[in-house]
């Protein structure tokens, strides 16, 4: 089975949504998915933060247009995409332990239900080396 490895550096609404769409496509294809959440990304996974993410990484002046369009098009939230992908295929989400600490997350219970474990950078690189597809968002 093909394996997708994703380095999720960004914790912004636009890039989280992109990650969610890509991940659910991988789920439809029965791929195994491993996501390594780095630096800024970890903020979105702190328990209670999932609905607080409203900044864009790119073209921040278009935020209103972007969020309204997602709503009009009935697009799932980034969190829903991640949940759907986890229901459909083998998706593991790991938080880089340094990234967690930056946003006040020391232990697994500090993070939301999507997160499987905390990890170190070595594991991310090994996963990227072994994956069929690697992307950095």
């Amino acid at each position, binding site marked *: 089975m093909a394996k997708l490895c994703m380095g999720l550096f960004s914790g912004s609404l636009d890039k989280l949504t992109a990650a969610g*769409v890509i991940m*659910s*496509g991988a789920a439809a294809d029965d791929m195994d998915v491993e996501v390594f959440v780095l630096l800024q990304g970890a903020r979105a996974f702190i328990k209670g933060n999932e609905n607080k993410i409203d900044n864009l990484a790119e073209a921040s002046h278009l935020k209103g247009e972007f969020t309204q369009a997602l709503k009009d098009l*009935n697009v799932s939230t980034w969190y829903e995409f991640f949940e759907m992908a986890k229901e459909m295929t083998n998706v593991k989400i790991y938080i880089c332990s340094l990234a967690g600490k930056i946003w006040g997350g020391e232990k697994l219970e500090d993070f939301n239900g999507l997160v499987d474990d905390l990890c170190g950078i070595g594991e991310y690189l090994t996963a990227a080396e072994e994956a069929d597809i690697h992307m950095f968002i």
Partner: protein
Amino acid sequence: MSQEELQNLVVDKSVDARGTACPGPLLEAKKSIGTIASGEIMEVLSADEGTKRDIPKWANKKGHEYLGTVEDSGYFKIYLKKG
């Protein structure tokens, strides 16, 4: 299959994904194909242009047979036979 043959197909499962944008129809197709038996036919209704190319490619990769697409007003119907 010809357009006429497609239109006369008796489908075992119909999935209406017209209310969703990409990747909604693909996800609906993936979920629903698990509920039918091998050899049965499913139609997916979609109004998302990307889906027209996406679902046939996905189906072929997953071992299902893509039978064809019928255009209707404002949406289209994609026919698949489960492998």
